[in-house]
């Protein structure tokens, strides 16, 4: 059955995924095991995306399927479980920018990978990032943006983290389709990614290392 869920997810068969998850919950299967299967499915999707077997539109859809399945599992997960898994991740599109396609995919894939994602939304001011990092104790921050004005906002956000003495405690990833090494250096981030799959890969390494 585990095989089926991850295959169904990797094949983007939404109805089958949801149906299998419901049946497994009804049969009293361990929700953690169901979640693990879904995560494997998401991993396969990431590999297929890198191999250019799946494309952006598939990635968006797979994130949505995963989210739907996760909602079904949530009520039966143990309340006292260690929900953070690989850790907390504060994510948002920076001030002055409202593009959220990339950010939402990252949120879905990170959740799939085992992070607890704190998605702040779009057009987020530096002080809000700072407040949420402090409050959650997150070790990872993701700043998303597509416009060039976002680069300055990313830089300001990182500076605000420095001023709040939090910079040393967090790793900052920036993401957007125009991000490259030059932009990464300009804003002072630890890593940059041009697509969600690449970004999630780097963050997973951070969490493990």
């Amino acid at each position: 059955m585990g095989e089926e869920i991850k295959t169904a997810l990797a094949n983007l068969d939404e109805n089958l995924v949801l149906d299998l998850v419901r049946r497994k919950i009804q049969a009293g299967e361990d929700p953690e095991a169901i979640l693990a299967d879904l995560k494997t499915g998401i991993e396969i999707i990431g590999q297929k995306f890198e191999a250019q077997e799946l494309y952006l539109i598939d990635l968006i859809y797979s994130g949505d399927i995963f989210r739907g399945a996760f909602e079904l599992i949530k009520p039966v997960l143990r309340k006292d479980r260690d929900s953070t898994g690989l850790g907390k991740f504060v994510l948002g599109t920076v001030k002055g920018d409202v593009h959220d396609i990339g950010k939402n995919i990252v949120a879905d894939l990170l959740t799939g990978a085992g992070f607890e994602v704190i998605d702040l939304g779009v057009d987020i001011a530096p002080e809000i990032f700072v407040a949420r990092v402090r409050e959650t104790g997150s070790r990872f921050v993701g700043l998303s943006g597509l416009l060039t004005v976002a680069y300055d906002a990313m830089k300001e956000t990182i500076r605000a983290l420095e001023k709040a003495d939090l910079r040393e405690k967090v790793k900052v990833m920036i993401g957007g389709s125009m991000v490259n090494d030059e932009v990464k250096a300009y804003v002072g981030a630890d890593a940059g990614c041009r697509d969600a799959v690449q970004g999630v890969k780097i963050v997973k390494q951070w969490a493990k290392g």
Partner: protein
Amino acid sequence: MNQGGNEIKQKFEERKRRVEAAIRLETPDRVPFTTMVYSFAARFAGISVHDYIFNPRENRRVHRIFNQEFEPDMNYLPATNLHPLMVALAQPCPVRLPGRELPPDESWQCFEEPLMTVEDYEYIIRKGMPLFMRRFLPKIRPQFIRPGISGLPGRLKILGLSISAITTAIASIRDAGKMGFPTFLGGGFESPFCMISLARSLKEFSRDIHQRPETVSRAIQRSVPSLVRVAKFMSRISGVPRVLIGFHREAFLSPRQFRELALPEIREITSLLSRAGVVTVLHCDSDWTPHLEALQELPEKSCVLEFDGATDIFKAKKTIGKRLCIKGDVPARILALGTKDQVLDYCRKLIEEVGEGGGFILASGCEIPPDAKPENVAAMREAVEKYGKY
């Protein structure tokens, strides 16, 4: 005509010949330069984006200043930013506007919500896109078309706004002409694919593409003829034989989905317009590299492909450069953060590789970002003089 007038007329003809030769894949005297520019021009002229959109007179002034300073080969009619109605119609999803929901100097931005339903696909297939839009607009633009206003008063309001938008566009084209600049675009809007995806929201649309691709395809196909009619109308009244159509999200598809859902749409639009003597300026945002081979099927010389820096433009030259004119693609990143020398270097590479043998127009990738350095914008113009002579 006095001597100054003759000189301007000569410049006008020279620039027009240059750009049109590139579109016909011929080799002009040098690589032409004309670029999408909106909020950068407003900032450069010292006015807010709000005034730029909501005050048509200011809008025209902004473009006069830009053309005078940066001397592009053609005036880039700011199709969707020219008039509040255009902004309202351009993106069929909720938007936030500068000076209203946003600070006066920010660009307007889209907020997608699944306002279009699955049933609406059937409505579009039955009644067509114009009737759907008439029903849909009050939902997303209560500030322009109040839901209460229907029937005659509603139509009169739209008619009044349309006349005002057309008058502004024509005045703007005339302004540029008087200064010796032909205009690149006679109008512009989004492809049916993008319109539906914005109205439906990307998330729901991605589900539709996987669960009901045939319905999506039929709704797109049904929308093409009315769009072509509008494009021809725009071209006729503006006197400009080029119309921009924004194709963005088509790029998100797999090559197989692209051939099934997007290519028929693009092929039909470009063929129908080409037969009417109108060149489609295919504004290709995002990464089109996986779809370049499919674009070989478009009619020869029927369009200009505007790349935004995400597509491998050098590969595009090799794949389709013998059939279609390529325009682009100095990345926004370099214009905003880079140095003048970096811009010159990148332009030189573009001119040498993509400009080889003609069929190329130098431009920024998508619009010049509002925070671009003016000397970097000027460097694009400098590059065509310096390296672009054939």
